[in-house]
Each structure stands twice: as structure tokens, then as C-alpha cells.
């Protein structure tokens, strides 16, 4: 079972896509240019502090708002290993899966950890934080297929005989 450990950044409920990446930066040519502005309306310093392998933990309804796929893309580009939230908004959820960004729903973790803590995630099984285990469920089969293909682009390349 895949397992990883990382330092957490903690955000609250209803982190919307305008916070994750404001509209004014959406028309930049690349996600690499955009990522420095991630979370800027709420925490302008955050993007520069996140290092590869860090984990984002949030409250309910993470990613609500717009359909902008730049949102999960900038989160991934910052090096965030996975996002753990009480719940995710629907379009953000699909977009993240299609880009191979791991999302985990866990109702209790957010209220019991603080920023800077280190946690260990065992995919499809549990999260270990502060000596306590938090159970997590696995994804539906059709989504696992997309993730296993390496995202929707790769799944389509395979369909079209390009891989």
C-alpha cells in the first residue's frame, strides 16, 4: 500500500477557487507562472512557503466555486502531495482526479491538527497523526482507472493509440 509522510498546511471551510487562483491570473500562459499567486487573496505568503511533499488539510467544501481547472493544477504544481478535507466541491473533485492530484475526504483530522504537524498517509487505508489513526475510504472504480492511467489525458492517449 502506498504510504507517504509530509508537513501540513491548514486552511478552513469553503476555500473557493477564486482564493486558490484568482481570475486575474487565469489567462497566464502556464501553470508554472500562475502558481506563485495560489491562495493569494487569503494568504499571500503561502505559495512561497509550501515545499514539495507538503500536505494541505482543509475544512468542508474545499474547491467550491468556479470550474477553473487551473485550481487543482496550481495546487499540484506547488508540490502538494495530497489534499485532505472534510469534503470537496464537485467540479474541483473531478478536475483534481483528472490531473492526478490525490484528494482524501476525512471528517475529523482538520479539527485535531495544527499547521506544521507531520502526518503519514496510507492511501485507501488511514492517516496517522499525533499517534492517532484516522480511517479513509477508497475511490470508486472508474476514478481509480483514470488515476491508474496517470490522469485523463493519458487515458485518452491510450484510447487513441498514442501510448
Amino acid at each position, binding site marked *: 500500500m502506498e504510504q507517504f509522510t509530509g508537513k501540513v498546511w491548514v486552511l478552513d471551510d469553503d476555500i473557493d477557487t477564486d*482564493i486558490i487562483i484568482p481570475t*486575474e491570473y487565469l489567462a497566464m500562459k502556464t501553470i508554472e507562472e500562475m502558481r506563485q499567486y495560489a491562495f493569494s487573496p487569503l494568504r499571500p505568503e503561502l505559495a512561497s512557503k509550501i515545499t514539495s511533499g507538503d500536505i494541505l488539510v482543509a475544512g468542508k467544501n474545499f474547491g467550491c466555486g*468556479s470550474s477553473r*481547472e487551473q485550481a487543482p493544477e496550481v495546487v499540484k504544481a506547488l508540490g502538494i502531495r495530497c489534499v485532505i478535507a472534510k469534503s470537496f466541491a464537485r467540479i474541483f473533485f473531478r478536475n483534481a482526479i483528472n490531473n492526478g492530484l490525490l484528494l482524501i475526504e476525512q471528517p475529523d483530522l482538520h479539527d485535531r491538527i495544527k499547521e506544521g504537524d507531520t502526518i503519514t498517509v496510507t492511501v485507501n487505508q488511514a492517516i496517522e497523526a499525533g499517534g492517532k489513526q484516522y480511517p479513509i475510504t477508497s475511490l470508486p472504480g472508474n476514478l481509480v482507472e483514470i488515476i491508474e492511467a496517470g490522469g*485523463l*489525458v493519458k487515458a*485518452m*492517449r491510450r484510447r487513441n493509440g*498514442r501510448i
Partner: protein
Amino acid sequence: MGQTIIEKIIAHNLGVQSVKPGEIVTVNVDWVMLDDIMIPFIVDKFHEMGFTKVWDPDKAVLIYDHLVPASQQDDTRHYRTGDAFAKECGLTHVHRSDGICHQLMTEAGYVKPGDVVFGTDSHTTTYGCVGAFSTGIGYTEMAAILGTGTLWVKVPETIKVVIEGTLPEGVMSKDIILRLIGDLGADGATYRALEFSGSAIEQMSISSRMAMANMAIEAGAKCAAFTPDEKTAEYCEIELDEFQKGLKGDADARYMKILVYKAEDFVPVMACPSQVDKIRPVEELKGTRIDQVFIGSCTNGRLEDLQAAAKVLEGKKVAPFVKLIVNPASRKIYREALACGVLKTLIEAGAIVTHPGCGLCCGRTGGILCDGQRVVATNNRNFLGRMGTAKTEIYLASPMTAAACAVAGEIAVAVD
């Protein structure tokens, strides 16, 4: 077992008798809407996936609205990319400056009752106003649809909202949807369909239904559904067939929840900064000084919205320190508002009338605000930083309330 509107649309699309909530199915797409912000990303993904042809070029509608007219030099790259893609794949429906995508998809005659539609913008839920199943997706999924004509969806559970009676004077459909978002919470309908019925809904114009369907996403909903009726048929310039006439929730359909409201109980409300579900009666906010008023967008930029504002502003003047910005949702609405004298009334009251487009609503152009400024706006989101800086305060309201605020220079009720 009966079915909800959305279940009927999905079953019809699949050619089966019925579907159940939670089932994962692959639907055949009737229309896709591609907008200008996302087009370069869609085109990149489409090519990266190895596609060379759009499954049906007549079913794709490309609309330039977020970046029209350009406010940054690089915006024109989006038009060039879109035009080149339209040429490459033979897309026939391209709107380069006709209005906001969610207005044009029904106004220009594309979406009809019972259609399955996806768009690269979250407010694609709007087309539920004519009884279509429509929702927003990202650019990677759009690229996959362009290549295959299909997309997987999970059949959503449905929340039924029944509103009986007649709305009080000064209350618009915007006040209903804001109140509902407040009652459900910003995630209260996540993954679910919102189905509207009742005598107040039957009395409503298509424009009023559009404002509600548009904001269904603000409660997290996957889609909104209104039963197509004579008004829908007239608006879509069609005669409803048997399938379309049958698009109503059955009495024995499975609903996750049924919410019943009396129309007479609604009052003018606002969504306060910076959450769409932070709803308060306008009465309680009276006297809060404001700097700007915005009437327009895909939520409330239709003729009836401009008429409602004009009725409040007739013979009055906007407060001298307030900028009132009016933004018709399409060229057609702009022309109609000009012809019937509504624009004249608004301009004489002191309004700035801008071009149809998404500019101010998404904080890109046309009246963005600075730290400490306060705006009353008729669009759909008051997220932190959306129409200016993170220290701009956005209050969402109906066009009537917004117009009353513009005159008072502070939060005010239209019918006191």
C-alpha cells in the same frame, strides 16, 4: 417508482426506461460550451490526447466573453487560439462579442428542454431554466468530450424545492435563490440536483428562472431543473414534444429532501461578504454606506432585470459618490433595452452602461474596486478578492435592491 426531472433526462439520453441516483453512466452530449479563458487549455489537452477531429463540430459553441474586449495584451492570444481551433476542426458556432456564454446558449437557440450540456464554466447550471441537464466541467474533460462526444456522470440525488403563492412587491427570484443558498449552505446541495416547482415558479418568467438556475452552483449543486412549459416553448421557439412535456418530477419520485416555501414569506435579502450563504434581510443592513453598484452579469443582466432597476431609478439620481455600472448580458438585450427606453432611464439616472461580458463579475475589467470599498452587485459570487482586492466588500442582491442602493448611496430597500 417515479422519477425526477434529471433522472428522466439522463434515462432518455441513454435510451433506457429509468436510472437510479448513484449510478455511474456515460451520457451522449448534446451541446458543449467553450469559453475564451479556457480555450487555450482545452486546445492543448485536445491535441495532447491525440485527437484530430471534434466528434460533431455543429454541437460545440465557442464564446468569447470573459476577455472581451481585451484588457491585457495577451488576452488576444485566446481569440487567436480559439479562431485557429474553430478553423482546424470546422466549428460553426463562434460568438466573438455577442454576450455572456450562459445567456447565449439558450438565447441564440442552442439548448432545448431535455438536452445534456457541459460547459467550461461553473454557471453552466443556468440552462436548467429550460429543463436541460447542464453542468460545469474542467478543460481536460472538455477536451475528452470534444474527441468522444461522451462523458461519465453519476446520476445525482434530487432536492425538490416547492414555492407556492405570489411573491411580495419588491422581491425578485434572486431573493429566493439567495435565501435558499443561505438555508442549504454553500455545500448543502453538493453533487445534487435542485428541482423547482410550485405555483410561484409557474408564474415566473424564463429570465427569473435563469437567475435561480444560474446560482444553483452556489449551493454546490450539480444542476438545476425547471419543468418546461408554454413559456419555455415560446422562449425556445419550439413546440414541446411528448418527452419534453413529461419533464416534471413524478409524485412518487425519490427525493433526498423536499423544501416547501410560501412565496409571501420571502423578503429582499443580500449575501454578505465574503460567503454566498451569509444571507441577511436587506432591512437589517440598511444604512451601510457603499461606493459602487453593479447591475448585470449572467445572473441578472436580462431585460427584466434592467427594467426592474429602471423602475426604481426613474426620475431619480444615483448618489454623487456612487458609480452605478450596468452590464446587459447580451447584445440582443442591450438592443432591446435601448429600444424600449430602459437604457435612457438608467443613463439619465447616472448609470455607466458597459458592453455585454463577464469583466466586472470575475474582477477582470470594467469597474474593479480597491481596499475598503463596498459594492452592491447582482452577480453570483462575493468571494474574497473577486471584484477587486481581498479588502473589497461585495454584497449580492437583486436588481431592484441594487438600484435602490445606488440612489441612497447606502444599503436600502426598494419598496419601503
